[in-house]
């Protein structure tokens, strides 16, 4: 299944760094997010977009992960050549990530 089925997400920007939250609709899915939505997978998913490091923070109280992606916004929101200089649409791309829910469908 897609990550979109079990989580929602929002992107924020600061300078050339983008952060993307991934929040489980149901807290019971949080372990699945912890196991499968790793910083390495997120970095690979954003190949060609993220130039720097990806760091993951965990917020178990709200069943959320926060990904901080360095060197992602074309040199910074105020100077980027990109159509979406803020990277606001990146959260939707992340929700396309494939999640293995342990069932064969």
């Amino acid at each position, binding site marked *: 299944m897609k990550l979109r089925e079990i989580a*929602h997400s929002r992107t*924020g920007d600061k*300078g050339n760094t983008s952060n993307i939250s991934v929040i489980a609709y149901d807290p019971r899915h949080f372990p699945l997010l912890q196991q499968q939505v790793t910083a390495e997978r997120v970095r690979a998913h954003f190949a060609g*977009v993220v130039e720097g490091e990806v760091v993951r923070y965990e917020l178990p109280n709200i069943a959320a992960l926060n990904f901080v992606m360095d060197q992602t916004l074309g040199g910074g929101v105020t100077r980027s050549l990109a159509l979406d200089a803020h990277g606001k649409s990146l959260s939707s791309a992340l929700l396309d990530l494939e999640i293995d829910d342990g069932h064969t469908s």
Partner: protein
Amino acid sequence: MRTIRIGSGAGYSGDRIEPAVELAEKGDIDYLVFECLGERTVALAQQARMRNPEAGYDPLLEERMRAVLPLCAARGIKIVTNMGAANPEAAARKTADIARSLGLSKLKIAAVVGDDVLDACKSHDLPIMEFDGTIKQLGNKLLSANAYLGAEPMAEALSAGADVVITGRASDPALFLAPMIHAFGWAMDDWNLLGRGTVAGHLLECAGQITGGYFADPGYKDIPDLARLGFPIGEVGEDGSLVVTKVPGSGGAVTAQTCKEQLLYEVHDPQKYFQPDVVADFSQVCVEEIAPDRVRVSGGRGTKRTDTLKVSVGYVDSFIGEGQISYAGPGALARGRLALDIVRERLKLTGVSTSELRFDLIGMDSLHGPQVSAHGNEPYEVRVRVTGRTENLREAVRIGNEVETLYTNGPAGGGGAWKSARDVVAVASVLLPRELAKPHVRFVEA
């Protein structure tokens, strides 16, 4: 326990105006905060002020103030805003003029000044955080340097009886923290209270982003009545407790989900949310729906503030030229790709000097690049977009021209060409020893 109700009337400079009027009219609020100052807005406003000493504040100040001042004056609602941009004193004088013209006398308008730290930054030649270089190395490209001030001068203005407090650059959550410090007498070293207040300010500062804006995803996250989106109200207790809500009957929704998304918006390490007044810790925050459109947020904490203030430095970075043209129907994608190839070659052939170029197909890969978008379907129409960074306006203009000439020289059926060329004012950051910024308050009476 004493509680205050703070309404958030704008999340950015161009935001809708009626939701703020609705808050003042029906929100039973004590304070109305307008956050209107983007990252580079101060730098642009500084340029405006250099051309005209009475300019340099938010262009919508007059419209917003005219819309809410009579209601706020009648109900005793205090206004706090960063619409002062590069010229808070002129904004205060303008607001006093507006108040008089509306027949409102005796309003006390306060301007918080001192965020402009250009001289201090120049004399200390501070290193830039985002790239290798220092303030001095920016030379005559340097436009402005404004420190993110904390809540203290705004709280001081409120305690001195201000009805309207107008700042320039200040931390966004501090606009909300100031009324709490003023109303509850919080000590400026009670880090946990300041941390909790910062959670509240952070959640409220983007206005509609916590009431269902920037959130709806049909079938997954449905939000009613976004055209009449209500802006949020924070009910803050003197112990820093918080309930987020909105005006009954307004559009949108306040849910645990909207609050969680906004909690992490523009946050990096949730344990270290650096503010001028405190380092806030969001990592233990809990969110609980207690009634429809009422969400309790608890668990915010804080630790001692740092010895530096973040300073936003505006500078002339470069020029950007851009051109766009559309193709549709069968083969649209192939013609769009051909168009990009032609422009790529033309820019080389004609020797356009650029330091960076970008070739996008809107509808295909313009948002996330060719790799992330590789598995997308072929669209009915695509829009070619070529952008490039140049050293001067003349070169920037040539980029759009090379797209426009595709009309008569490019693939079949290109339509709707558009071009632009502009200068780029960018921002970078430095950290300034906090004692070098000297904020103070000046009053104007209407």
